[in-house]
């Protein structure tokens, strides 16, 4: 053994000694449970014993219209949220990045971050209050004449509007994250790029198109993927505001899995559903992984 490899081996031992507590905890409480779920998805789980059913749970899953409905609604909820988050986040980040007084900038930034500090449960409750059929939104809309007094909208209780309402609330709660990230991204663009582009005859629109957007590409991609993952697995808001209803019109995968497991006690079936959800998420995550781990 040369001195070099001995040194490398000592580094390995030391590094893993420091990593040990974290790795032990994560293996015990993330990797092992994950293996458990995958195992359970091949079984029918009852109080007394687990019965092997092979791919039975998965066969039931793909034949279930409720699963496909939840998957489709999760996709709508996620895509709508992410796109709105990026557009609003970028717009506000550009405003905050403009030449304004630094104290006012941090005041506005602080106020705009507020929804993100609230627990999703709290956000859900606030909006249940606002969106109530007799709530302040309908009250406002009738006052300004956009809505007839006798035809108010039951935002959360009508299957036609429930998913849209839940999505809008999620947009409200989570846009601050992209906003803050994109603001940091804007701050990192070197001034020279703007100077060079203006020498080349670029106006503000051209600068946005040829300097700002390309420079933000990395941050935008990262934020979009993180937001995709977080929104795709979101549970609290939907559970609190609609419970997936009425008649499953706002059911997403996370709430559907919860109900199958903890109300219908079909643990095997719910496990298969969870594995399917993980696979869908992984498709998005692989793209993120490629970005996040430098070679």
């Amino acid at each position, binding site marked *: 053994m040369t001195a070099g490899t001995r040194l490398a081996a000592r580094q390995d031992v030391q590094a893993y000694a420091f990593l040990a507590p974290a790795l032990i905890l994560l293996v015990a409480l993330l990797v092992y449970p994950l293996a458990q*779920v995958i195992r359970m998805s091949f079984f029918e789980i009852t109080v007394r014993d687990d019965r092997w059913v092979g791919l039975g749970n998965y066969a039931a899953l793909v034949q279930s219209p409720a699963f496909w409905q939840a998957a489709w609604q999760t996709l709508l909820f996620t895509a709508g949220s992410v796109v709105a988050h990026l557009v609003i986040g970028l717009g506000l980040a550009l405003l905050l990045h403009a030449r304004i007084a630094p104290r006012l900038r941090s005041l506005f*930034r602080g106020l705009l971050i507020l929804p993100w500090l609230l627990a999703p449960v709290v956000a859900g409750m606030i909006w249940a209050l606002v969106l109530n059929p007799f709530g302040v939104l309908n009250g406002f809309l009738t006052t300004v004449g956009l809505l007839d007094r006798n035809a108010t909208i039951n935002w959360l209780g009508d299957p036609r509007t429930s998913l849209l309402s839940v999505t809008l609330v999620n947009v409200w709660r989570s846009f601050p994250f992209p906003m803050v990230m994109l603001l940091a991204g804007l701050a990192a663009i070197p001034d020279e790029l703007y100077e060079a582009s203006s020498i080349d005859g670029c106006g503000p629109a051209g600068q946005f198109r040829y300097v700002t957007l390309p420079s933000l590409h990395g941050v935008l991609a990262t934020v979009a993927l993180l937001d995709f993952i977080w929104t795709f697995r979101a549970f609290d808001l939907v559970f609190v505001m609609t419970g997936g209803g009425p008649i499953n019109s706002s059911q997403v995968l996370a709430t559907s899995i919860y109900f199958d497991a903890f109300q219908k006690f079909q643990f095997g079936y719910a496990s298969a559903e969870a594995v399917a959800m993980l696979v869908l998420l992984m498709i998005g995550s692989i793209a993120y992984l490629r970005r996040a781990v430098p070679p």
Partner: protein
Amino acid sequence: MTAATGAGRRAASPERRARRGAAGRAAVYALLALATAITLFPVAWMATVSIRPNVEVMKIPPQWIPSVVTWQAYAQVLGSSRYLRTFLNSYAIALTVTLLSLLIGALAAYALSRFRFRGQRLVMAFLIVTQMFPLVLLCIPYFRVMVRLGLYDTLTSLVLVYTTFTLPFCILMLRAYFAEVPRELEEAAMVDGCSRLGAIVRILLPLSGPALVGSGLYTFLLAWNEFLFAVVLIESWENRVITMAIYSLLAEFVTEWNMMMAFSILASAPLVVAFIFLQRYFVRGMTVGAIK
């Protein structure tokens, strides 16, 4: 940072530029004020509902200003030992989780930023992947494991589970900070006879104060706001946390809006107060992990 947007308008005359700049700034302020007003309206509405009698909540057209101000809803919440207990539980859990995550996380982050070792890329990839697990997937096995271990309906189960999902985030955030602290400082201390652990405690950690505050605050926020695992793993009122209490209020007292809003405000206050004083660290913490 401030110079970027207006930097490239050399061609216009100075006066025209100044006039356009002032008008532009006014427009920016107006748009920001509008966005802030829309964003904060629901929160402001919640605040007024918490201090008005319940009969004045659901009205069309809305009663914008309460006719009388009453603190009765707050008295109802704070006078109930059952609700106070949930606050105590949330504080205990969130603080324990924060300390544990920072401690275990700092050790792991140290290894990732100061050593080159076999499997390093794999560990990094593993940490990033773990953040993507749908938490609802973990609920099913957690439920069974905690029942089997006799930890079902205990605060310990929540501390364990919360630490697990906050830890990868803490590690990645602290690693990014540690990488910015020059390692020569620690090496110098070790040459002077400091042990490795001594160098961490005396040199690295004091220099990483903002990092610890930032990731600690974010961990606290995650633990304080968590709901799903609490619903799955906790049963009795004695062990419930605030998010569960809020949900029970919504389910049980469907119409007592003023009390629900008072509870929500009390439940959000610690985070908002911490944020006001620590905004800088918090924003840095949000961005450092992902911008790299």
